[in-house]
């Protein structure tokens, strides 16, 4: 319990610091949303009108005062309203979030479906043709930028063959190309990681001991090698969550997929400050939550961590 409470306090402080830094950075970027809000391109507006709106949004106050206003509302669970759509930021985020989660999960499934069999086979058949193929796949997969891969897929499946939609969401078909693109880009690393981790596991002395007991090779692999080999894979996964999130941003923009990634890119272009700030906080909370989950996985995979407090008996 103390452990959890400590982590929670740490997390709150971290969130505070992060929100401050992101607030400052957003404001430091040149431009503001005022002209967009007044539709300068379509109607003529006076200088006074612009200044009045700036005052109303408190853009003329010092930055720390502006931050203070934001923080006060944040503690009332109010992330403000979007300057452009006038909708509450929180409800905007929540309405867009399921689409992103669907995309992320589908990509993870693609990643697991590729990297687990390929990593396993290339460990079992080290330096055979499967291994060479997987090495090539990893090399190509990690060198190709995901947006380019996405474009290739669109060209092939949507334009040439016309069997899959290239943009938007709605049916299960819409999720295939985005998740395939992201999943392949991610799995490149994990194929090799799992392979080396499995090879290390197969060379352990306790594997030899299990053989000496007459345990079958299949059982040794599944119960004595594979489980332990997931530890480094999960570690790297926990650390690369950031790139997964930014990966979804690229993919969502490319496939015009209405998730929160697409939303934040639009918000950045329009300097829609509350939405950007809300996105940053939302993602931070998400990453911390997944990290706690990774922590729990760890404890399951390695009982030594779980029982560390227990004295040697």
């Amino acid at each position, binding site marked *: 319990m103390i452990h959890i409470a400590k982590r929670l306090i740490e997390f709150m402080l971290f969130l505070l610091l992060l929100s401050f830094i992101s607030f400052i950075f957003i404001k430091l970027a040149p431009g503001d949303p005022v002209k967009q809000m007044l539709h300068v391109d379509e109607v003529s507006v006076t200088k006074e009108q612009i200044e009045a709106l700036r005052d109303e949004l408190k853009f003329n106050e010092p930055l720390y005062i502006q931050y203070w206003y934001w923080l006060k509302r944040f503690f009332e669970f109010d992330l403000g309203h979007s300057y452009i759509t006038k909708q509450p930021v929180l409800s905007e985020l929540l309405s867009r979030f399921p689409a992103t989660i669907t995309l992320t999960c589908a990509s993870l499934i693609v990643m697991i479906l590729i990297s687990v069999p390929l990593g396993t086979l290339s460990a079992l058949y080290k330096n055979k043709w499967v291994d060479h193929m997987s090495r090539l796949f990893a090399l190509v997969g990690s060198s190709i930028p995901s947006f380019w891969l996405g474009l290739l897929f669109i060209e092939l499946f949507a334009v040439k063959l016309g069997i899959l939609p290239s943009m938007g969401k709605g049916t299960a078909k819409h999720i295939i190309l985005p998740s395939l693109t992201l999943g392949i880009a991610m799995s490149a690393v994990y194929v090799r990681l799992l392979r080396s981790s499995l090879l290390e596991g197969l060379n352990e*002395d306790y*594997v030899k*001991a299990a053989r*000496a007991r*007459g345990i079958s090779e299949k059982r040794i692999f599944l119960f004595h090698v594979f489980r332990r080999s997931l530890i480094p894979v999960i570690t790297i996964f926990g650390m690369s969550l950031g790139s997964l999130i930014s990966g979804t941003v690229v993919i969502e923009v490319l496939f015009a997929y209405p998730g929160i990634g697409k939303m934040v890119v639009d918000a950045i272009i329009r300097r829609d400050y509350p939405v950007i700030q809300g996105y940053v906080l939302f993602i931070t909370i998400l990453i911390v939550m997944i990290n706690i989950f990774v922590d729990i996985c760890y404890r399951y995979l390695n009982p030594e961590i779980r*029982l560390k407090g227990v004295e*040697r*008996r």
Partner: protein
Amino acid sequence: MSLLTVHQLYIYFRNKPIVKNIDFTVRHGEWFSLIGESGSGKSITASAIGGLLPKEMLIAAGHILFDYKDITHLSNKEFQKIRGKEISYVFQDYQSSFTPFIKIGKQLDEMIQAHCSLTKKERREIAFQALEDVQLPAKRVYDSYPFQLSGGQLQRASIAMAIMLKPKLLIADEPTTALDSITAAHVLEVIANIKEKINCAILFITHDLRMARKYSNTIAVMKQGKIVEVGTKESVIYHPSHPYTKRLLSAVPTIKRITSPTKRDLILQ
């Protein structure tokens, strides 16, 4: 009556012989010690008997007969049936005798399941009996992870696992080397008790003559891949014929030699 016969065995590692023309016989219920310095090929020989040679090594010539069957070139599947049930191993590195993240009980259970079809309750009884045979608190060890036990306890647990299915031959590959001398003596005693109880033969591999002296019936001395001398304990220890055995014997520190002044000490005085 011979249980294990190794006949003119050659083992090659990348086209170089590392075990050359080895001959020895282990009789039923006998304690057979194979002594030699590190790199003399004794552990390789032990691995070869159970078909546990690393991929780069192969048996180039010779035969291994176990229980009147030629097991020299069995397939891995056939070896799986023998290993753990008829021939079992205890290794030097007790930390690696068990998979670190699986409870000891589960690993004992897994091994019984691999060799016999018994109910859960029967399997548990066998495991508990084996742990008690090596003087461990059965229930606690059964429910422990390997890292929760001390070195001596872990080595005894691995002996329990090795003898659980009453093998005919127990190959103990330097089982005491990584232990302190008091724990080592205890582990030796445990092995000796078990041997009496289940009446198995023991192939005891060590580089330490002191470990072989107490319980052995027969001693073979190995050097650079060859057996240079083999005989009863008495003949090898008290009447060594090969110069290497003599050197090995003289290297064992005895209380007498430590306390009595040497020639050099006398001269210095």
